[in-house]
């Protein structure tokens, strides 16, 4: 057998593994995650994969051309407080930057919690104040040294932090992205005073304007280094022992892969390692199917996640959130709300609410029979006939319809004077409308109409609900990928080696500028982007890639002066001439007006280029996707069951994986029971299986809206 690409997504509950063979065939495997031993879940899936091909795990791993993975190690360390104790060095006078938090007590909270004044408090600091020290030094907004670094003072500060218990160090000084000399000197002093302790400098990790986010991100990164380092070394060792001959790659929040060697230096860039895989997978599938604008939706038990693919590329924001902490590193933007199959339905004062509280994994929905008595979205799906009690998690768990019905009757139907079916449909209507509202907000915020997108739905519950929230948004095409149940792992398997580098170094034009090329010298713009590009190439080379093969994408964060929000504007490769600068400004104004309306451009204020970004990727060679297998000749005739929809019981066709042959067409109302999810095609909709086994749902009058 030939080379194989292997990718694992080590999630909180399950570890998913995908294999892609040289002929494009995709294997999908799932095993429970062992929380204290992430390698165990991976090895369990590899054993399944090996058995599938009639080989041994060492044989499978021996064929691996790539092994890539996503991990929740960094995220879990944050949520569980298992970070190292970090000593943070800051500019004298500004040691309270973290406690002050720019005065925001609302960071990371939703509106309902912000309105709860009496309980509205700031989050826990990423490091306690006693582990933050000030050093005498100051650089100004132009990078000039106002006060030289007092080395004796700095040395004493490091010693104090060490004595106070610091295990790792972070340095974040004002304006270090304009002049990094003091930070670098501090690194040398720390190396002398605390030999061997890992140090993170803000000028390396995140050379961006804004000392609050920079300091938080730098401190978090420093504190995550040991735990991530241990985890990847352990996984690497276990896999090597099992026969893997090459170093594993790890998925980063920005949607690209990096070798595990040295990854701990940017530990904070791995917090979205798992979730972004799904969005990347949609990017890849979209490229094959010709979908340029995609809303990627992942609905699980407790949350609903939305990612956007704009013009063929995953939208990358300049930060992401873990709990209430913002990590200001480029990250595929994924919005999350507390709405999933476990969301609780409650009646208060005659009003029906669904979520954000969730029944969680334990006790879970009432139908799990694990002691949950309150009704959830999954209970509603079961009562309405969408779910088959015998086919949940591939039949690994039996659902109890009577318990689901009782929960809905007791807590929703009786108080509201409805039938159980009406109440269940009400729960579903409310949750689907909320999901549609969230998707709408996510697209509108980027200046787009959701109806112009293709919707991809995956995760345990996404394919069950997408027919409804997609229709609500007027979306024409809904895709349930063949890899829906292991979508993140598939995304990791099809990712590229990638680095994303940023640098703040503002350039601005005065108010009333007519010729932007005069105010924004092309040579200076060229120099800035080339500087960032050089850093990106250098990092790729250190990751073992050939910089010559790298594809570089350039972008600038721009805004009108006196504004805060920025837009990312793409640029061709440097060098730039006057015409290129004028074209850049023109594109910015165009993008701005497209988003905020004609005439909204604030040109009189002048413009500002704040941050420069280069994303460099080296595509990994991978085979084109194989054609999905033809329909099994002995595929059973579709079954039938009653589904409650639109206030009445209706008959639905019930199909299985064997019916999803390329070209197959399925008229709604239909249910396709897959091993790990259930796909619903609504009344008036039709499904069509594409050559790769993905199910595409459209409005029945072909080409119409879903």
């Amino acid at each position, binding site marked *: 057998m030939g080379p194989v690409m292997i990718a694992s997504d080590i999630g909180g509950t399950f570890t998913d593994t995908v294999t892609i063979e040289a002929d494009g065939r995709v294997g999908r495997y799932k095993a429970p995650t062992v929380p204290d031993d992430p390698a165990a879940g991976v090895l369990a899936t590899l054993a399944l994969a090996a058995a599938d091909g009639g080989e041994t795990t060492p044989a499978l791993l021996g064929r691996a051309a790539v092994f890539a993975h996503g991990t929740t190690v960094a995220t879990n360390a944050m949520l569980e407080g298992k970070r190292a104790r970090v000593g943070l060095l800051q500019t004298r006078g500004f040691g309270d930057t973290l406690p002050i938090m720019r*005065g925001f007590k609302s960071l990371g909270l939703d509106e309902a919690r912000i309105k709860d004044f*009496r*309980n509205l408090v700031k989050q826990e600091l990423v490091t306690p104040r006693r582990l933050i020290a000030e050093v005498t030094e100051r650089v100004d907004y132009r990078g000039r040294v106002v006060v030289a670094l007092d080395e004796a003072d700095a040395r004493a500060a490091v010693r104090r932090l060490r004595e106070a218990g610091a295990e790792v160090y972070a340095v974040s000084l004002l304006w270090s992205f304009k002049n990094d000399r003091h930070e670098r000197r501090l690194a040398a002093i720390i190396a002398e005073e605390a030999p061997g302790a890992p140090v993170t400098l803000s000028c390396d990790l995140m050379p961006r304007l804004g000392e609050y986010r920079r300091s938080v991100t730098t401190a978090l990164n420093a504190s995550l280094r040991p735990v991530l380092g241990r985890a990847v070394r352990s996984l690497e060792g276990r896999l090597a022992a099992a026969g893997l001959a090459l170093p594993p790659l790890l998925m980063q929040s920005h949607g690209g892969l990096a070798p595990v060697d040295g990854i701990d230096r940017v530990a904070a860039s791995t917090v979205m390692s798992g979730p972004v895989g799904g969005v990347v997978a949609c990017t890849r599938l979209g490229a094959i199917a010709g979908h340029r604008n995609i809303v990627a939706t992942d609905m699980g038990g407790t949350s609903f996640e939305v990612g956007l693919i704009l013009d063929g590329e995953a939208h990358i924001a300049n930060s992401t959130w873990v709990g209430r902490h913002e990590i200001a590193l480029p990250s595929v933007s994924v919005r999350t709300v507390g709405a999933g199959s476990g969301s609780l339905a409650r009646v208060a*004062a005659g009003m029906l609410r669904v979520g954000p509280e969730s029944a969680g994994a334990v006790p879970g929905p009432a139908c799990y029979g694990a002691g949950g008595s309150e009704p959830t979205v999954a209970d509603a799906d079961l009562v309405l006939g969408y779910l088959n009690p015998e086919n949940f998690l591939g039949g690994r768990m039996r659902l109890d319809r009577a318990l689901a019905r009782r929960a809905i009757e007791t807590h929703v139907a009786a108080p509201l004077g409805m039938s159980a079916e009406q109440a269940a449909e009400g729960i579903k209507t409310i949750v689907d409308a909320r999901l549609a509202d969230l998707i709408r*907000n996510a697209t509108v915020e980027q200046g787009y109409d959701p109806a112009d997108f293709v919707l991809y739905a995956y995760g345990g519950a996404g394919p069950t609900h997408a027919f409804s929230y997609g229709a609500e948004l007027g979306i024409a095409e809904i895709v349930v990928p063949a890899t829906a149940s292991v979508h993140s792992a598939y995304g990791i398997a099809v990712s590229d080696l990638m680095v994303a580098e940023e640098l703040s170094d503002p350039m601005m034009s005065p108010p009333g500028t007519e010729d932007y090329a005069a105010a924004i010298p092309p040579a200076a713009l060229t120099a800035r982007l080339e500087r960032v590009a050089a850093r990106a190439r250098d990092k790729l080379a250190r990751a073992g890639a050939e910089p010559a093969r790298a594809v570089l994408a350039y972008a600038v964060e721009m805004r009108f002066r006196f504004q805060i929000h920025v837009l990312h504007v793409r640029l061709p490769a440097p060098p730039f001439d006057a015409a290129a600068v004028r074209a850049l400004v023109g594109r910015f104004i165009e993008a701005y007006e497209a988003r905020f309306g004609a005439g909204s451009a604030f040109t009189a204020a002048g413009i500002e280029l704040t941050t420069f970004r280069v994303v460099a990727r080296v595509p990994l060679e991978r085979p084109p996707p194989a054609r999905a297998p033809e329909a099994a000749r002995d595929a059973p005739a579709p079954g039938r069951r009653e589904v409650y929809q639109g206030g009445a019981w209706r008959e639905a066709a019930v199909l299985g994986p064997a019916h999803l042959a390329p070209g197959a067409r399925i008229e709604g109302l239909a249910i396709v029971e897959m091993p790990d999810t259930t796909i619903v095609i609504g009344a008036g909709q039709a499904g069509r299986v594409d050559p790769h086994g993905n199910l595409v749902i459209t409005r029945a009058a072909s080409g119409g809206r879903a």
Partner: protein
Amino acid sequence: MTSDRTPALDPVTYEVIRHKLWSVNEEGSATMIHVSGSPVVHATDYNFGIYTAEGEMAVIGVYLLVPIYTGSMAIREFLGRFDDIADGDVFIINDPYLAAEHQNDVQFCAPFFHDGRLVAWIGCMAHQVDLGGMDAGSWCPTATDVYQEGLRIPPGRIVRRGEVNRELWDVIVANSRMPFTVSNDFTAFLAGLRVARQRLAELAGRYGGEAIAAVMRRSIEGSERQLRDLLRGLPDGVFEHVSYLDRPAPEGTALVRVHCRMEKRGEELVFDFDGSDPQSAGYGMATRAGTVGAVATLMLCLFGSGIPWNHGLMRPVRVVARDGLCVTAVPPIPVSGGAAGANWVAMSAAAGCGAKLVSFSPAHAGLAFGPGDGSWQLAQFGGINQYGEPFAAMYLDSLLWGGPAFAFRDGVDSGGAMVILGGGTQDVEQQEVGQPLLYLWRREVPDSGGAGRHRGGNGIEYAMTPIDSADVSGVLASHGIRLPNRTGIFGGYPGACARFEMVRGSELARLHAAGCSPTRLGEAGGRHEVLAGVSSGVPVRPGDIVNIRMQNGGGYGDPLDRDPAAVLRDLAAGSVSPRAARAVYGVAVAGGAVDAPATAELREELRAQRRREMRLPDAPQAPSGAPPPDASAVPWGESLLLGRGATGDAAVHCGHCSTPLGTPGADWRRLAGVRALPPAELGGLIEVHEALEARQYLCPRCAASLWVEVVPRAGEAPPDFAI
């Protein structure tokens, strides 16, 4: 649209529409902020809301809270004045005497029609950086009449049936020092309104206009019901609180009295400010709109923790105040500072009343907090920036005061604002790249929150010096300089006063070149001065330093009851000084741990000192060993127990040691020991005007701190409650 025509609306459709209205509001406000070019707007000095056809607040976001209610007042103003309101109109107003806090707060309101019927209003407002007047920024603290202040815009149409009223637009913009920014903000308003209107039209097309109106009506009724239920469970009575607006006068500092008398009867609340001083020319006068908006803000924060925010939280509330008071100024009294002047003092006084009321219910005592936001320390700088361009900037760092303490937690440090729950300020780097001022520090001030069993939040101070510009001047104005408005409750101490300081002609340049970063004003050489509360056009020359320190939250409960472990934590974090740990909290620390025996001894000494200094009440002392109150006694916070004494008569007991203090008369304070809080315990951050004193009421027996207030040296404050 009256409620007798409510169509049948099933709970599912209700919930779907309710969520969609939220979503519409969020889309509208997100669009508005993104388009706005103003840093002030980005710090959430704006709001966006959906109102009923009658102008009641239906959907409220988490922006600057005071103007949300003024939006409602504005819509009623339009409804009352115009009988030709049409689809496609957008109304404008900023007249503070009618419906705004001050002239900077320009509001746009758009009626939403469906099938020819008025279904709702969408309103938005944002603080405009400049609308003319004698000071850059239009916040004119030294104005003596309204004509020296920014442009006043009476109710009118800025868009008529979809056509922008360009003449009016140009008149407004022509009066601004920052015409581009104002014009851009107006564009932002229209963009936000357009998006919201479009989305409402889609909703109405699908569910009908009447369904939308019914959802708004029903959610308001739901909140009203919940508030009325809560109020019914609280005792009827009258609750009072007084505070003062201090401002420079020809001779020293004048005090303007703001008196809140809150009467709770059944399910309703009346806030009566008639006992306040009359209006007078000069800094800090507020209009009725600003005062009612301040009361509405308090209602949202005091009762809105468990009740959805909408007009239902104001329906059971009435605000009484005759025209012409410091809280209801009428023309030509200047009111540009009225966004955060007497109305904020009124908000503090109203919070005091609210705390005194809810603390009678053990179930709701956790809602109580002391006087909320004390003062807005205006720090507005202008001149020529480092790029040679004119600039004007209001520093929102002044928002970073400490929040009030609650019965169950400390106040939030550096960012406890009630008026802006979801906002804050910019990074130092963001400020420095825009304005020619170099920060020397921005830090939390230890001991600046009021001491208490739970302490008030500490606030920040920030110091700056000009860089790359020789042309910088400042407008620095605030009250709360000569007295703390933010007294504690139930024995907690007041928070630090506001302060503006300068060092003129410092030796910073020499010190910096020598590798020194001064960390105190006293280390920088030059001439140190403390500024009066209100100064305009203050030159800030190269080498000068301006330092601005916040007024902060008061404490809750007796500081001697604070958990010593919490004091130790505060010491480690630098939030409390070693001096205050001993002198105020009575906590002794040895080797990084609490020394428990020494702490007990120290606290006993401090109690003994209180006993020595306290004047005992005239009422006879209860004999020792007098019976404790019976089980039915009602606690008032943690200070008192109101129950029956040995003879079955009504009796007031100390909430700490249960000792009977006497029979309740007009004022419980006559039953307590009294002393003036000595400067050592107040710390160095609180000033008390010569006509006032910080007075502490104590249990004559156990010497627990029962209440601390700032009252006239001569004379009494009105009683806290009469139930």
